């Protein structure tokens, strides 16, 4: 078995105190009064699944179901309270495209900066520069500061960089809402092609139709638990039925 992502018995607890104390004074006062309450909130509890190379998997669930926390654990920006998260291979995150852009830098400069943030060297980016710009359809604007780009242009550049850098796992989080219809179609084609090339796709979306179209498998999370894990059509239908039931109650 060739698993690229292995999630075993993962739990993630947030300590609520950490969200509240923001100043040194508050902290000291609470410390003195022994009022540092550590009420926990479990965003994920005992979640296990693994993803094989070349799979396309969607994470679905309501707001607050733990999808984003799961993505953060996989991306390595957070460490699980319990259990083990193992990722083999590099990740290209497409989470909120353009989060790493500096508005004052030009598109060109941002390509290199963003590439470096994803762990790629300048020379590698240089080799891919032209096709990145061409794909993003930004040739006339590449030397303009990104602050004057439209949100669609930023998304295009971000998507283009993330798909051009060589990564084993592509993480897409609710981003394709930006960009016009044509570009969205182009994105889907690219993701399809990447899947064909043995890359792994992890997709998070509330758009069930998108999920069905793009992913073979879906994992449905609710309040930190895995409700269902299987073929995306089945899981999506179960999720929709459950949502409808919830609405009626």
């Amino acid at each position, binding site marked *: 078995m060739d698993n690229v992502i292995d999630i075993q018995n993962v739990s993630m607890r*947030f*300590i609520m105190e*950490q*969200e509240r104390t*923001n*100043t*040194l*004074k508050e*902290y000291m006062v609470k410390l003195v009064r022994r009022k540092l309450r550590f009420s926990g909130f479990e965003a994920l509890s005992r979640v296990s699944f693994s993803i094989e190379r070349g799979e396309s998997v969607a994470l679905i669930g309501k707001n607050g179901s733990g999808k984003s926390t799961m993505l*953060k654990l996989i*991306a*390595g*920006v*957070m*460490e699980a309270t319990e259990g083990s998260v193992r990722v083999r291979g590099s*990740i290209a*995150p497409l*989470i*909120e495209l353009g*989060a*790493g852009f*500096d508005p*004052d*830098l030009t598109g060109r*400069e941002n390509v*290199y*900066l963003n590439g*470096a*943030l*994803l*762990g790629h*060297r*300048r020379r590698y980016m240089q080799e891919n520069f032209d096709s990145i710009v061409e794909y993003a359809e930004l040739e006339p604007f590449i030397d303009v500061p990104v602050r004057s780009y439209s949100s669609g242009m930023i998304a295009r550049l971000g998507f283009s960089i993330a798909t051009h850098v060589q990564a084993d796992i592509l993480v897409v989080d609710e981003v394709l809402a930006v960009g016009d219809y044509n570009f969205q179609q182009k994105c889907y084609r690219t993701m399809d092609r990447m899947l064909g090339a043995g890359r792994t796709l992890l997709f998070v979306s509330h758009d069930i139709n998108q999920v069905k179209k793009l992913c073979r498998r879906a994992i449905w999370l609710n309040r930190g638990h895995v409700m269902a894990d299987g073929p995306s059509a089945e899981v999506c239908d179960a999720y929709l039925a459950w949502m409808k039931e919830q609405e009626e109650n």
Partner: protein
Amino acid sequence: MKHEVIMTIRYSHLIGELVKRDLRLKYRRSFLGYFWSLLNPLMMMTVMMVVFSYMFRFDIENYPLYLICGQTIFNFFNESTNKAMYSIVDNGILIKKVYVPTCVFPLAKVLSNFTTMALSLVAVLIVMVFTRVQFHFSMLLFFVPLIFLLFFAGGMGMILSGLAVKFQDVTHLYSVFTMVLMYATPIFYPIEAVPEGVARIIRLNPIYTIIYLFRELMLYGRIPAVGAWLYAAGTSLAMFAVGAVLFDRMRRNFIFYI
């Protein structure tokens, strides 16, 4: 910690890109551009020279050079640590999304300020030429105290950036701290001007030791005693090590606060 060190080395090109960004943006949209790195210290020095030659007089040989040496070093420390302090908070969105070894942010800030300081050394050179300082071979050692300073500021920057994530107060406190530090560092006055008891404390200030080394080399062409070198090297490396260890303990919690 070991893993983080390896990752930082692997991401060293990211530090390079971040430094490049800072340098590009620093003088973007300004007419004189990098020339400011040279002009600014000269203008500051002139102002201080005028103030301190008419109001408070100190008996210091080659006062302009004395001033600009101290000022260059102190300003670098002040600016780089201040910028580093905000570096994690400012990159919060990014840190939440993509894995990067977080220490690259404060370290890149310190390095980009170090580069601009290196540029403003030309201003020091200009003052040396103008005041006709005699050339000594010992002057070629000028970079050694600056390297110590780089490590010292790097350690301090890591500590501040980590603390500022959890406690905003640190940013306010630090501006007061740097003001105190500025007066406690003989930049525009000679150490002989303060009572011996105070001078003894000032000599413990690592920033002052670095300024002292730099001045001895550049002003007088003397090679300072071994003790001062060792003290500066020891405090700088210790500060860097403590900074790295503390940062490593804090970084795990960044995600919960940014």
